[in-house]
Structures are given as C-alpha cells and as structure tokens.
C-alpha cells in the first residue's frame, strides 16, 4: 500500500519533466483496495485491469522497474514501450493485462476464469474495474456468463463515485447499490469500505473461500475516492466538478493513515518500523526511476515488430 502510494506520488512529482509521455491515471487514495485484494491472491491467480491499474499491477507483485520504464516508453518496460501506463502486463506474476477502453478487459478476465475452470479450477481470475464500467453493456454480459458457467471469477468494483469529471447523477440512479443490483443477477456479492485495508482484506478472503467452495463467481464492491485528477499528476478540485469539502472528507479517511493508526494503536508494529519501511520503499522507488531513465528507447523500426505473431 505504501509502495503504491509512494510510486504514484513519485510519478506525480516527475510527470512535469515531460519524460513520461502517455496518459497516466493515478490511484492515490484508492490503494487499500489493490493491497487488500492482492494479499489474497496466489501467484497462479490471474489479474486483468483498466486504465487505472498501477496499484493492481504492483499489488499482484508486478515488477516496479518495468512499470516505470513502461511509462517512460523504454525497451525495459513491461510492455516494451508499446503500451504505456494504460497497458501493463507482467506474466511472471500472472498480471495478464490492463486495457484502456472502459469494460474492455472484463470479458477477457472472464475468459481467463473459464480457462481455469477447464483446468479444474486451478486459479482464480481477479477482474478490476470502476463503477463507471457498470454502465457498459459488456459489464452485465461478462457477469452473466460467469454466473451461468460457474466460473472462478472475482469481480472487484472500485466505486470512487466519479467517471472522469462526472459524478453519479447523470449515470446511475440515486439509490442504486451496485452490489445489490448485481446480486439480483444471481451472484454472491460483498460490500466494504474500500479505504480500510483490513476490511478489504477480510472481505476478499471470504469471497475467495466462497469461490473455492462453491465453484462460483463473487462480486465485490468497495467504496473509495480518487485524490488527484482523473488523468494526470495534479489536483483538480479547483475546476469545480467536486467540492473541496468532499475531498477533505475522503482525505481524512486516507487508507494509509487509517491503517498506520490501526497498527500503531494496536501495537502491532511501532511507528519507527513504519518509518523504516518508508525509507526502504523510497529507495526502491528511486531505483525504479533510475532504472527507467537509464533504459534505452526502442528503435523507430521496431514499430513494425509484433504486429503478427
């Protein structure tokens, strides 16, 4: 969680150097979800994700240096520079790909779940998406097929209440609970506070037990909030689509502070240790950026590589 935060903060800091030249969606404020979910995933389990996937990638154990190099467009990037921030992959940890069209990776994750079923439910397919994705037709199509076919799919909806600069009002009815709506399709669902990493962890744990026991998919909804602008490194509360007050409320519920306080209060670890952890994390992040900066750019001619396999 701290790693994700520090990585994202560093990207935000360095973005204005104009060396990371691709659309980049940060997940600052939402880190508890990828952290809490990922802790439950085994290496064999697969993940697909969206435009906002840094946390999911790192949570799954994706290579940090390669991610930064990808954002820099270098050959050492996890997608060799072809994909950028919105198209990450790390096959070593079964992070199977994040894609940038809303809803696009959902059915791919369902296909991964089907492949698992065909091999006797050997793995779970974790599928991340935002609440905006629930408005796409492919959302219900994907979930319906997972239900009908009893697939080991874990659907993780990060409800941060915004799609770009649009709040829920023009997009979803006022009293809708996404998890309840989905539950009525015939799938087990859970809901939890997405800013409390322990809640996320426990909820996911239950979900995975359910998937394994019943050989059926589960749908999770987590409430959370994005701190920075939709795309890019800055804060954007000033432009008027959300209030400073709302932002402050959520900032107050910072998932990292929340967890730190919990750990310290319950004497699980002391503050010193956390500081040390920050230090080592920051070193790691710095190394990753150095790695990325040093890596080579691909050659212009490589443009024609890998169009066909």
């Amino acid at each position, binding site marked *: 969680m701290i790693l994700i935060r520090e990585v994202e903060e560093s990207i935000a800091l360095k973005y204005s150097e104009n060396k990371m030249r691709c659309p980049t969606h940060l997940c600052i404020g939402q880190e508890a979800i990828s952290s809490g979910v990922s802790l439950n995933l085994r290496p064999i389990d697969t993940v*697909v994700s969206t435009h906002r996937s840094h946390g999911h990638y790192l949570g799954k154990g994706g290579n940090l240096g390669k991610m930064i190099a990808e954002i820099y467009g270098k050959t050492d*990037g*996890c*997608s*060799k*520079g*072809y*994909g950028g921030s919105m*198209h990450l*992959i790390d*096959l070593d940890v079964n992070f*199977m*790909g994040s*894609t940038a*069209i809303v809803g*696009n*990776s*959902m*059915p*791919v*994750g*369902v*296909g*991964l*779940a*089907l*492949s*698992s079923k*065909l091999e006797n439910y050997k793995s779970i*397919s974790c599928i991340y998406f935002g609440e905006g994705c629930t408005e796409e*037709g*492919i959302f219900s*199509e*994907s979930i*319906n*097929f997972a239900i*009908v076919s009893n697939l080991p799919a874990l659907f993780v909806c990060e409800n941060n209440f915004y799609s770009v600069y649009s709040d829920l009002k023009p997009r979803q009815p006022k009293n809708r609970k996404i998890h309840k709506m989905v539950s009525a399709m015939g799938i087990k669902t859970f809901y939890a506070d997405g800013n409390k990493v322990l809640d996320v962890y426990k909820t996911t744990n239950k979900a995975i037990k359910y998937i394994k026991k019943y050989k059926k998919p589960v749908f999770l909804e987590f409430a959370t909030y994005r701190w920075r602008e939709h795309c890019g490194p800055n804060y954007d509360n000033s432009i008027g689509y959300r209030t400073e007050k709302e932002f402050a409320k959520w900032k107050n519920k910072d998932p990292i502070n929340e967890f730190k306080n919990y750990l310290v209060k319950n004497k699980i670890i002391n503050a010193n240790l956390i500081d040390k952890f920050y230090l080592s994390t920051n070193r790691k992040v710095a190394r990753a950026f150095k790695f990325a900066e040093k890596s080579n750019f691909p050659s212009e001619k490589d443009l024609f*590589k*890998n*169009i*066909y*396999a």
Partner: protein
Amino acid sequence: MPKLRIIKFHESINEAMTIAMKSNRKVLCFGLGVDDPKRIFNTTKNLKEKFGANRVFDTPTSENAMTGVGIGLSLQGYLPVMVHQRFDFFLLAMDQLVNGAAKWFYMFGGQKNVPITIRLIVGRGWGQGPTHSQSLHSWFAHIPGLKVVMPSSAHDAKGLLLSSIFDKNPVIFIEHRWLHNTTSFVPKEKYFIPLSKSNIVKKGSDITIVANSYMTLEAIKASEFLEINKISIEIIDLRTISPIDYSTIYKSVKKTKKLLVLDISNEKFGIAAEIVSNITINLFKYLKIPPAIIASPNAPTPTSFALTKNFYPTHKEIIIKIFEMNNRKLNKNNIPKNKNLHDVPGEWFKGPF
C-alpha cells in the same frame, strides 16, 4: 486410381473442426447454436458428442463479451473457434475485436498472442435483407493484427480452417452461406492450406481476375463461356484477404496486363479498391487498359425478391465486362442463364433461414 472423395463445404468445415479438436485438446468451439439441432448448418455436427460440453458450448446472446472470453481463453493457450450465424451480429463485438484481439500481441510488446478464430457466415438470398447479409471484410482487412480468410470451395475450407485455427493470430474466417452446399474434392486426412497465399484457380493469358469467396464460383462459371469464346482468363482466388498475397497477383498481371477484381461486398471503399490501387501503383506500366471492379451495388441489401434481382453480380456481368475489356462484341443472349431463381443458390436452400 481411387475415386476422388467429393463432399460438401459444410461437411468439410465439420471435418476441419473435428480434426482440429481431436488433434489438440485446447481447441474449443462456441457460439449461439453450435450444439443445437441445426448445428450451424451442419458445420458443428457431432462435435459436442465427440468432445463434450466443456469444449463445445452454446452461449448467451452476448457477442461482445463472448469475444473477450475467447481472448481470455487464448491467453492461456486455448484455441477458441467462435461461430456467428450471421456476419451482421458480430458488429456488436468490434471493441473486443479491434481494441482487444487485434492489438493484444502488439500493445503488450509481443508477449501474448491471441490465436482466436472467428467464423462468420454471410447471408444471401430469400430476403435476408439489410441486416442479415452484410460482409464487411474490408473493415477487418484495414486493421493491422487481424487475418481475414475467405474460402471459396469445400477443399479450401478444410485446409484454410485448419490453418486458421492453428494460426497464432486472430483470424476472421468468412463463409458465404451459398457455399455451404457446394461440393469439391476434399482429402480425408488433415491438411493445411497456408494463409496469405492465394490460389490460381485457372490459368489464363488474356486477363487476370482476382476473386474471393462466392465470387470465385461466378468467375469459374464465366470462364467456361469465355473459353468457348476464346478468351482465356486467369482466376486468382485470394483465399486470404489480409495480409494479402500480392506476389501472385503481380505475376499474373505482368503476364495478362489486364485486371478485373471481384468482391461480394459493395464496391465503395471496399477491398477491390485496395487491390486495384496497389496494382496500379506498383505495376502501372504493365497495365494495358484501366483495371475494373465488379462488386455489389453501393446500397444496403433490400429484402424484396424483386429488388434483389440485380443486386448480386453473376457470371453474366463478369462475361460482359470481360468482353468489353478485351474489345470484343458480345451477343448477351448467348450467355447461359442460371437455372435457379436469383435469390436461391439451388433447391437445397429454401425457406426462411
């Protein structure tokens, strides 16, 4: 010498499916109706019985998601064959096809290919009308990363489908409904016809005809009459539309110096234009006369029997055009007539579907 084995196109597709599924347990087959009583015009006959419901399955009416499911399966080494009873239904899945399947290998740096095969059946006749008879293969040909295959005979269908299934890339495999009952020599064993290699169906010297899918049959039909009239045409059946095999066309046009391109879709911004354009750019000095195109009219397909009368070009239009291109006089009354009504390919095709 043993007698040649003549079977139908739909049987040959079925054989290819059976062989593929038998030889590799990773081959799957799914789509609306693949296991229903009609078995996609018999092309998926017995597959479920032979390979089980895990590998051959019906799906919800969710074209877009099911394409994504196919991508996901193929990322784990499966070789999914998806089937759509009509090309038109597949328009719902363009995001998954173009933003997903076609680009996956490229945009993730060549790490995971998507060996999915998508069978699309093109409707024609008996009032299939505006939304049940399109073939937008030019769309797919425009997309880097996709392969587009259009067989014209039972023989080719088997070998091309096997190559498509085992190809590492997403392949769109387009079957013209009127071909399903045509017959040809089809070897019993497994054989592959290479993709991106066209086929010279008939050697000739006076003009090069580039055809695909059902239009190849019309070209062959035309050639019989032309032969009698001492016009020798060379018919190239593209087999694969994209990536296209230009070298065979180049060789032929260099010889005949004349080019006529046929297509089953409408002419405007279609694949025939690409071929004429490429040949013109590359073989300009060889061309003795302007190339020509015969394709469907630039209109949606109307439903009425009466309105489709001249909708689909046949051997007749080809013959007329070729006489013209060879500066020959023609008595149109001599052109042999089709024995069937214009909206059916034969007795076997009757009634609604």
